[in-house]
């Protein structure tokens, strides 16, 4: 399996807060070792690897994960933009309800108006 973790740098040069949160969760849980590579989607540089991967896979959110079943990337890619689904389906780690709820809100910022 080959897993690419795509993190974002904002147009103002600051790191994406959510990307940092996800990276911390991967580190704290010891699962960063299962990530094959980490690349940057730099909004200031459309040619950055992460931005090109986002375009290639038609992804409009960050962070996201690209998963290939084999290391040669011959299989169809699975794209995950929701960390807890990625963690559950690929890493076999069930996120807590609290983590899931926070991520739902982060991914759907309009919900905080409800």
């Amino acid at each position, binding site marked *: 399996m080959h897993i690419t973790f795509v993190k974002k740098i904002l*147009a103002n040069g600051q790191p994406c807060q*959510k990307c940092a949160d996800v990276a911390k969760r991967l580190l704290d849980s010891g699962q960063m070792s299962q990530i094959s590579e980490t690349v940057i989607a730099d909004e200031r540089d*459309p040619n950055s690897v992460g931005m090109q991967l986002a375009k290639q896979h038609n992804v*409009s*959110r960050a962070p996201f994960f690209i998963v290939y079943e084999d290391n040669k990337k011959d299989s169809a890619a699975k794209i995950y933009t929701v960390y807890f689904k990625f963690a559950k389906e690929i890493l076999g780690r069930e996120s807590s309800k609290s983590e899931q709820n926070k991520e*739902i809100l982060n*991914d759907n910022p*309009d919900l905080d*108006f*409800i």
Partner: protein
Amino acid sequence: MSTNQPQDIVKLALDSHDNIAISFSGAEDVVLIDIACNLAEDVRVFSLDTGRLHPETYQYIEKVRDYYGIEIELLSPNSQDLNQFVKQKGLYSFYADGHQECCAVRKIAPLRQHLADLDAWITGQRKDQSPTRSDVPQQQKDTAFSTTAHTVTKYNPLANWSAAQVWQYIRENDVPYNKLHDQGYNSIGCEPCTRAISPHQHERAGRWWWEESTKKECGLHMINVVET
């Protein structure tokens, strides 16, 4: 679909689902209740009682209950989760590290639990409320709360209406409204996270005003991506 009036969407929603409810925030989305009560007798309504609403909002919810003769189900946070959160973070942690964690406990968790038992819900979301709502459709699969085993449909009948149109409806139909609107409150949420704004400010300015907009932004600005 985009040209349908809110009444058409509410009717479509009520006709399409038996197991459906209206989400009422205690603000101008009361319009949905008014429309629905003109179409059906057994309208189901719920509100998220975060425990931090203004007294005026609680009074208003009660007023709406009496005015329309409906039941309003108040969804409260899980007491154990809330106690743990408050014990660890206190009552005002959102001023220091953002509102997401508090909203997740007080809003998202009870909403998620409630929607697990519903097939559809109706919200007052409008495109003009916030940049994050600029593409809100009138009907959508709710990807946030649907699971592989259970699809939830979300209806946003007011999506294409402006705030002015909502208020025109409220005035023309003598719909009761939250007193806070007369005090400069445009968007009304929890008391610590809501403030009055001036007439020319966007309503988003009245909510979580201390947070940086960049921290709310998870999108990738694909417009910057060019062919190589």
